[in-house]
């Protein structure tokens, strides 16, 4: 059960949604969750979870080192992505190489992990990569903000349409009261806590009844009742 959280634009709330999904599954439902911070541009998930610096998901491919698995809770683990950010900034990799390394994770994780794996990614992943992920049975959650609801240009609209087509669910983040029903899965804007710690952020987000319902129905959609039972 692997979920890839992705987007077209940056800063739309992929990491926040990943944290909220992890919180709801691991803390509220006691379901095992493995988070992989595959955002090679920022690794914000690793920072949000206060993961210490160490070998992350790219280390096996970069340095021949085993990755470090951070135990956040007894049923919640995280593989950080600091090494990938460094590599992305310092070396001349082709994106294809990073994609292949991530694909290797997608291929190997089900062999050793039966819980839910949530992969937070960089924005604008290539459509060919997402197609390959779908072929492997990965659930794709596409996150957008209200820009997706506005027709900025025909090109942008086409880009969104292509991503929507490959996604199992589209979540529109930062909606207002008036746009809350603009898409099947919307997340209301909430006041972010001063301490940007994953628990505080996720709790604040899920305190909102609309957001909590969105997360629950989203999980029901991507993990049908046989695999994920909402209690």
């Amino acid at each position, binding site marked *: 059960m692997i979920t890839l959280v992705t987007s077209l634009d940056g800063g739309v709330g992929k990491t926040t949604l990943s944290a909220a999904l992890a919180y709801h599954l691991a803390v509220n439902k006691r379901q095992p969750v493995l988070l992989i911070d595959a955002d090679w541009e920022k690794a914000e998930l690793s920072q949000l979870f*206060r993961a210490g610096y160490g070998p992350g998901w790219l280390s096996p*491919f970069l340095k021949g080192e085993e990755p470090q698995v951070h135990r956040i809770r007894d049923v919640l*683990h995280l593989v950080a992505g600091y090494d990938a950010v460094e590599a992305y900034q310092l070396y001349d*990799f082709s994106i294809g190489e990073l994609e292949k390394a991530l694909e*290797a994770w997608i291929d190997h994780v089900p062999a050793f992990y039966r819980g839910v794996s949530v992969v937070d990614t960089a924005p604008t992943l290539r459509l060919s990569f997402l197609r390959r992920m779908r072929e492997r049975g990965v659930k794709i959650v596409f996150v957008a903000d209200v820009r997706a609801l506005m027709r900025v240009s025909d090109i942008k609209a086409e880009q969104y349409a292509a991503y929507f087509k490959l996604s199992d669910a589209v979540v529109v983040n930062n909606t207002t009261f008036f746009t809350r029903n603009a898409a099947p899965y919307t997340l209301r804007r909430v006041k972010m806590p001063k301490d940007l710690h994953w628990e505080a952020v996720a709790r604040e987000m899920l305190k909102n009844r609309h957001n909590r319902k969105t997360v629950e129905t989203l999980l029901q959609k991507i993990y049908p009742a046989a695999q994920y039972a909402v209690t």
Partner: protein
Amino acid sequence: MNLNLKKGAQILHQFGRKIADLDAPSASTPPATTTAEPATTTTAEAAQPPTPRDDWGVLLVKLLAAAPEDVSMKLISCLDKDVLVKALRDKEDPYLKVALLLLKK
């Protein structure tokens, strides 16, 4: 620099074998939090979690008593003497009262 995809996949394969039971929650262990663990203390009393009855004065005194001496001295030097005396005066302890009288002398 290139990524070694073949070697990486091998390492992941071996790594997967090692952590195959990652998703098996241990029923006996309470959930760990990411918050910092409290520092170990020197006395058994100080190691106990504060009870709701403990007021700020008691907690402050317990902290100062439990911390290493150099840390306690630094903390005391930051605190107002009257604040400390007030915290101590509230405690019905004859030894403390004598200690306070000695200090006043």
